[in-house]
């Protein structure tokens, strides 16, 4: 009951602020400015709720809906060759200056389906580097739904101090529709309390805490192999790069993360700098749903602990005819996995994960120009997995550069058209795959080799966007966007004979969105 009440509360907050009347959203110049407004919130204030005291972009409110479709053979072998998603979202910021309060609220619902994806009974693959997931060889057809609630509240508690708290709630359900029905329910709750101090109206410092609990409840209904059907339905629980359990019990996963963050904001005459450093520790535990006292089995079958660091920097500067925005984000995850061995009644360390991603983007936004925005982006991605029971190592480093531009037809209040385009090139800088003792293990031949071939391939991505915006009744502003992107591999650096794609394959993404700005 408490859970339901809290959900109703979140929805109320989200929609309440959304329908609070016309906001600044409709008064900013165009769709580019509105995107910047939201980007500002999600890159800085979403991470430090108490800093909403210095939110300067004005209130906004929107309801958007969109459909995206992606398809192609050039994708990770454990993910999907086809995916369709429908999303509806509401998001707003509302200020109550008389009381010193500011709120953010968003609620989103996503519904979709996906096809294929071998050796995957989780819909997603773990993003924290964990090697643990259920898998069967048989590809599946999936349905998915997710509910995403995100609220933040900030209150000025004195002339210099501000307190804030963010609360996120994500619930999702993914299930395979046939060929072994598998339900996968995930509930994620994140709480972010923080405190900000205004040092001298130009320097702000904030500190905060992070707690996140993710509960994943797979409900596996293993398909019984009938007759001459291929042996693709056997259920495994993956535990490393060759380490797996071939008769796993029903388990649930609890991933608890505890962290702290510190942020600093510096205001200059015509520019500002934000820096946020977050460090957290997480522990992912796979627990038996039922424990037999007769067999004296341990409840916890596998555990994965990890440290992650995230440094985010954002710099904005105004010029006479526009502004520069620079974003830099570097993330590092360092994780260790251990598996319980019944034979020795002990946890055996077997897995190590390391990743670092760095993302630098510089944008130049021109105020009164046909060429409205120019951006350059560079992403570095380094990942390393090591199963030292098998001596199996898979590591790679990739770099991707992107150039993008937006052209606007003019500053017309009644209707505007924006045409955008981007081009990326991803290049593999290095790769090392040595299966050692796992060379004959099916994980190597069926999963690791094609996945490595995918990760170390070079590709280009070309995309285009057409948007239009215009006023509608009630003084509201409507955005319509149609966008598409096309990926094509240009070289397969390793294991070309064992990759799941060829240079003739590709992958495309199309999306259509509609956004009412209030």
């Amino acid at each position: 009951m408490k859970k339901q009440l809290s959900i109703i509360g979140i929805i109320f907050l989200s929609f309440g602020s959304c329908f609070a009347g016309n906001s600044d959203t409709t008064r900013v110049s165009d769709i580019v400015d509105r995107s910047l407004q939201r980007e500002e919130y999600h890159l800085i204030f979403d991470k430090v709720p108490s800093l909403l005291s210095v939110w300067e972009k004005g209130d906004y409110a929107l309801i958007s809906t969109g459909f995206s479709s992606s398809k192609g053979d050039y994708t990770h072998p454990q993910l999907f060759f086809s995916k369709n998603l429908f999303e509806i979202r509401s998001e707003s910021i509302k200020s109550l200056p008389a009381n010193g309060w500011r709120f953010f609220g968003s609620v989103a619902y996503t519904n979709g389906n996906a096809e294929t994806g071998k050796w995957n009974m989780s819909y997603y693959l773990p993003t924290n580097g964990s090697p643990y997931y259920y898998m069967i060889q048989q590809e599946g057809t999936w349905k998915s739904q997710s509910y995403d609630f995100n609220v933040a509240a900030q209150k000025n508690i004195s002339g210099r101090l501000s307190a804030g708290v963010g609360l996120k709630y994500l619930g999702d359900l993914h299930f395979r529709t046939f060929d072994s029905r598998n339900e996968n329910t995930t509930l994620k709750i994140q709480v972010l309390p923080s405190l900000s101090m205004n040092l001298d109206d130009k320097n702000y410092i904030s500190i905060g805490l992070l707690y996140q609990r993710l509960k994943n409840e797979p409900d596996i209904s293993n398909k019984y192999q009938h007759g001459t059907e291929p042996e693709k339905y056997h259920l495994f629980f993956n535990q490393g790069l060759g380490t797996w359990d071939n008769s796993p019990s029903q388990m649930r996963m609890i991933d608890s993360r505890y962290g702290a963050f510190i942020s600093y904001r510096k205001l200059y005459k015509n520019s500002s700098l934000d820096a946020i450093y977050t460090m957290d520790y997480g522990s992912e535990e796979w627990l038996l749903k039922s424990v037999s006292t007769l067999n004296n089995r341990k409840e916890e079958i596998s555990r994965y602990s990890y440290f992650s660091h995230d440094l985010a920097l954002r710099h904005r500067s105004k010029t006479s005819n526009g502004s520069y925005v620079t974003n830099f984000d570097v993330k590092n995850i360092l994780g260790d996995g251990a598996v319980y061995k019944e034979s020795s009644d002990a946890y055996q360390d077997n897995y190590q994960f390391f990743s670092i991603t760095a993302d630098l983007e510089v944008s130049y936004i021109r105020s009164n120009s046909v060429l409205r925005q120019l951006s350059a982006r560079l992403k570095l991605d380094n990942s390393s997995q090591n199963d030292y029971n098998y001596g199996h190592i898979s590591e790679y480093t990739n770099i991707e550069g992107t150039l993008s531009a937006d052209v606007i037809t003019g500053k017309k209040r009644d209707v505007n058209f924006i045409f955008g385009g981007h081009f990326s090139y991803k290049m593999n800088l290095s790769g090392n795959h040595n299966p050692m003792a796992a060379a004959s293990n099916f994980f190597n031949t069926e999963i690791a080799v094609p996945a490595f071939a995918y990760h170390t391939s070079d590709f280009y991505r070309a995309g285009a966007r057409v948007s239009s915006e215009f006023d509608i009744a009630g003084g509201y502003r409507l955005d319509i966007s149609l966008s598409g992107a096309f990926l094509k591999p240009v070289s397969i650096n390793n294991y070309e004979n064992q990759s799941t794609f060829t240079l003739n394959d590709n992958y495309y993404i199309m999306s259509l969105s509609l956004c009412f700005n209030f």
Partner: protein
Amino acid sequence: MKKINLSLIITALVTVIMISACEKKAPELSVIEVTLATSAAFNGVSVSNIPVEITNTVDNTKKTVLTNPAGVALFEDLAPSTYNISASKELTAEVAFNYTGFSKALTINANLQNIAVMPLQTSKQTLTLDGKAGGDLVIKEVYSLGAANDGYAIMFKDQFFEIFNNSDEIQYLDKLYIAYLSPTKAGQGANDVPLGLPLTSFVYASKILQFPGTGTQYPLEPGMGAVVAINAINYKEQKPLALTVDNSKAQFDTYAITWLQSLGRTGNSFFDVDNPNVPNMNCIYLNIQNNGFFNMDDYASIALVKSGPVFTETIKDPTITTSEVYYMKIPVSEIIDGVDILAKSSSAAFKRLPTVIDAGFTYAQENGSANYTGKSLRRKVAKTLASGRKVLQDSNNSSSDFEVVAPATPHSYNIK
């Protein structure tokens, strides 16, 4: 602006370099050192250049290394796990005569099961090659897993096994025994418990059948097989689309109801059907009081046993505490041939036959769960003679001697 952007990039690079300094853990691999020896009966047989095979029972991967002149095979860079180790050597008829007194080719085997190897450990193991002269009669095929695509109309009623004359002389089946070996659990389920009784002198039977006849009534020509069907019925005719067999041409049928009723017990008329045109096997022992019949376990280890002995000594299953289950003790020395069929590749702990009879074991699917797949375990052909007679592989190691076929193939090796 430029200064700030430059400082951002420098900060980024320094951060990347600092974090990248983390080191990887070194592989924690293991070593198995296998030393081959021979039993006293085969003292003098060279142990050099013999292939030794290890199987990781967790991931089913195999590795083979030849022994050096001292009989040592070294397996390096292994994942810590549990391993089965096996080796075999073929002796020609001339060489075998020196050790057995029989001028027949012979394969001697050695096998170790479930050797746990810890990380960074060097595990030293000794394998002793041993064997007995191959039987003239061998178990050619065991079909116990049941029919597929039959809409569960046949289930396992179509089970059979086949005895094959692998020699160049007529053999007689009269009064030979067939023992279905225990325990019935073969490692399929996580809660299956191995029997735990020693396999040195005895194996343990839950059911025993005997071929009828008085001594020379049921001859088996060289290169011919005799099928014993649970029910001698043409199931292929009943369900043409199913993966099943025609058992109507079986030489023998099992039927327990009359025998059980004579003992004051009841049989199972649903699964146990008599074909009056096919001779029945003699019922000797059935450890189920009522409702039993002579079906094989899903994963069925069976043994062909010499005629002559009368089996009377039973032993209680020590792993079952909720009821009393007994097995008949069968002396290993009386076994002519045996095949160990278990649930999956990691089921070595459930072996029901000693190494001297079957150095390994076989299974239909690496990961088990092969019930109702129509699959059958069949002995491989070693060679086909000019006369058309097939000589079957008999190294007393079902891991290498047997293959999986579907559908089952009764009488498939018979001389046409």
